[in-house]
């Protein structure tokens, strides 16, 4: 009850509305703007709000900016969601094993994490995409490569402290298999701080994707907000709206996801205070 109250207060409501708005836009894209968003269907460089057929105007090549924006929302959410899942799965498995088994395994996994953390996240993503070639999958993998270390470290620290609790010994004395104890009994207790990390990972993934697309390393066959900004750059002085509109979309989405993450954090803390 109190945890739910804590979630739906101020920032939580705004965050939910923003993310829900982006999600609805993504879902409605084929309805509002059917057909290929990359089709050249109008006169180039129509200003926004001047032609009712193209409410947000057209770009340099005469493509509908609204259609691009809505379809871009899909790509953005898919990249954000998929990167979060991939990052959390890798981070959770590695963090749990390192924390629970300890010893050499812990050392090896944490040095691996050090290696990944010693390279700036974006350079890592850039290197991977330029080798693997631009596609949605490679962007997701590229983002996860740099991000998995954060949940892995947080989880390892949580598991290390939980491992000393007597209930873990009690399960061992009962004869429960170690992996079952680690993943089914201890892990759920360690998840709350990682769940709050999820929002940061999503926001970061959206930004990295946008930046890769901006550099021309996104999937060339799908519209993304980063690619739209890059596209508008050439005419930035005469038609700044082409970069500003997707830019605002990115800001709104990342802000929404972060507010949601903060609210989830507060709700989890309230629940833990009760326990």
């Amino acid at each position, binding site marked *: 009850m109190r945890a739910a109250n804590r979630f739906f207060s101020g920032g939580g409501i705004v965050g939910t509305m923003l993310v829900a708005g982006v999600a609805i836009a993504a879902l409605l894209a084929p309805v509002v703007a059917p057909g290929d968003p990359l089709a050249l269907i109008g006169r180039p460089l129509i200003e926004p709000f001047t032609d009712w057929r193209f409410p947000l105007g057209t770009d340099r090549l005469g493509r509908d900016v609204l259609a691009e924006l809505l379809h871009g929302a899909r790509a953005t959410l898919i990249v954000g969601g998929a990167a979060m899942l991939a990052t959390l799965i890798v981070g959770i498995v590695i963090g749990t094993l390192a924390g629970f088994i300890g010893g050499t395994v812990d050392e090896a996994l944490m040095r691996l994490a050090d290696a990944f953390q010693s390279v700036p996240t974006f350079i890592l993503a850039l290197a991977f995409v330029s080798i693997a070639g631009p596609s949605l999958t490679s962007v997701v993998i590229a983002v996860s490569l740099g991000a998995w270390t954060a949940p892995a470290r947080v989880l390892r620290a949580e598991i290390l402290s939980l491992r000393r609790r*007597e209930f873990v010994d*009690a399960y*061992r*004395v*009962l*004869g429960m298999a170690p992996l079952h104890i680690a993943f089914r009994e201890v892990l759920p*207790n360690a998840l709350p701080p990682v769940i709050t990390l999820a929002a940061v990972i999503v926001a970061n993934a959206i930004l990295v994707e946008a930046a890769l697309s901006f550099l021309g390393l996104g999937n060339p066959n799908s519209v993304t907000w980063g690619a739209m900004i890059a596209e508008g750059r050439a005419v930035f002085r005469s038609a700044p709206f082409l970069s500003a509109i997707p830019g605002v979309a990115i800001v709104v989405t990342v802000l929404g996801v972060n507010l949601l993450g903060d609210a989830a954090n507060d709700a989890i803390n309230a629940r833990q205070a009760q*326990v």
Partner: protein
Amino acid sequence: MTAPLLTVENLSVVFRQGPKQVRAVDGVSFTLRPGGRLAIVGESGSGKTSVALALAGLLPRRGVERGGSIRWPSLGNSVCAGRDVGVVFQDPMSSLNPVLTVGEQVAEVAVTHLGLSWDEASLRAGELLERVGLPQPHDMADAYPHQLSGGQRQRVALAMALAAGPKLLIADEPTTALDTLTQAQIVKLLDRLARDTRLALILITHDLALARGMVETGMVMNSGRVVETEPIDALLSSPRHAYTRVLLEATLDPDAPPARKAKKLPGPPLLRLSGLRKGFGRGVRRVTAVDGVDLTVMKGETLGVVGGSGSGKTTLARLIVRLLEPEAGEIEFTGLDLLTHRGAALRQTRARLQMVFQDPLSALNPLATVRRLLSDPLRIHGHVAPVDREAAVIGLLHRVGLSPDLADRYPHELSGGQRQRVNIARALASRPELLVLDEPVSSLDVSIRAQILKLLDDIQRDLGLSYLFISHDISVIRAVADRVAVMDNGRIVELGTADAIFTRPSHPLTRALIDAAPRLHRKAL
């Protein structure tokens, strides 16, 4: 007649959290003369600690409403916690700052409240550490809290409480975290300090026997209210209130004859340990926790293991249930060499050899319901068909005296006693022959402790179980054990029937443990 030091009238403390409110203290009144000594006795939830916090001005500011009045007639009314009132808490580790040396912490109090310079304060800190009986106080002043033993830390906490020369010392369960011998030393120290400096003392405790030797007045509290306030001797010899009698009856007497007459050894041997050894650390920092222990537990008996903290009791327990691997020695269980068991064979043996842990809350997964906790062993050992599991869980709950309604509760929704019953039920689920009980009642209230000991006794009688019962409290061991092993420094220093150990203790440590136990009545000579 001098003015009283402290007058408390109709004190109430209400904690508010959202719509919920808890009346922790309800209409408490008492007075204390300068140099007077009062014990506030009660179990957890009685409000005794809230009274102490209110007196020291340490109640949280938000979410708390305080009613009634606290006045200090002989001090004027500008009383300052830390200067006029010193406080010592239960856990000396968490009340000391881990990154300052103990000398600095004691000196800091003198700098803050007496306006001394750091040099003067350091000198004073040295004197104080000497007064609280720390060996080599000037070397000790440079130590950090983690380098000290529990008893030494509590002495440091006491030195801090006394640093500004208070008129009143509030000691909140000051010895509960310590073993029997250390407890007796701290009690003696408190007594001496209070007498030397005409310091008034308020002792907060759950233990009537501990209060007896230290105070002149006892105030018994239950659910926030004062049950009765009497001179301590009258309180113990002729309690007027039913609740006081409950507390008295639940207090174990270390001088009573052992509860169990040494039966003819029931035998055959169930568990045999020989030459068991386990150490931690390397080189000069190596500590041999268990150092060549030979011990046998017979079928159907309770073997009590008693010793101070650091004597190796818990390591011994963990070796037996294979949570730790010994460096040397043998463990033979029902004629099988336990140490050679691996994998499935080990799992099978584990079913017959279970353990109950010390901290009933920490031993239960916070995210599992009671039903799930009790189903786990049934599922792992598979001796109950899945369709019968629900009935088996209900049966286990009955067995430990819990209502089946509790099956859907989470551990934090249970009381301390209920939690320990769930722990016992879980250990019983795999139908073991031997239970290793590691301090199973040390964290429980006295009245709950009596119930759990009775439950363990009933279960043993009905199921013919054997117990290896570990405790630091000789009075508990006296109440449960057929035979007793006394441990010190990883070795068994004395082993015998309960009767022999308690009537004719031969090792000095055994005698010291028996003498140090708090008593409700003066020991007959």
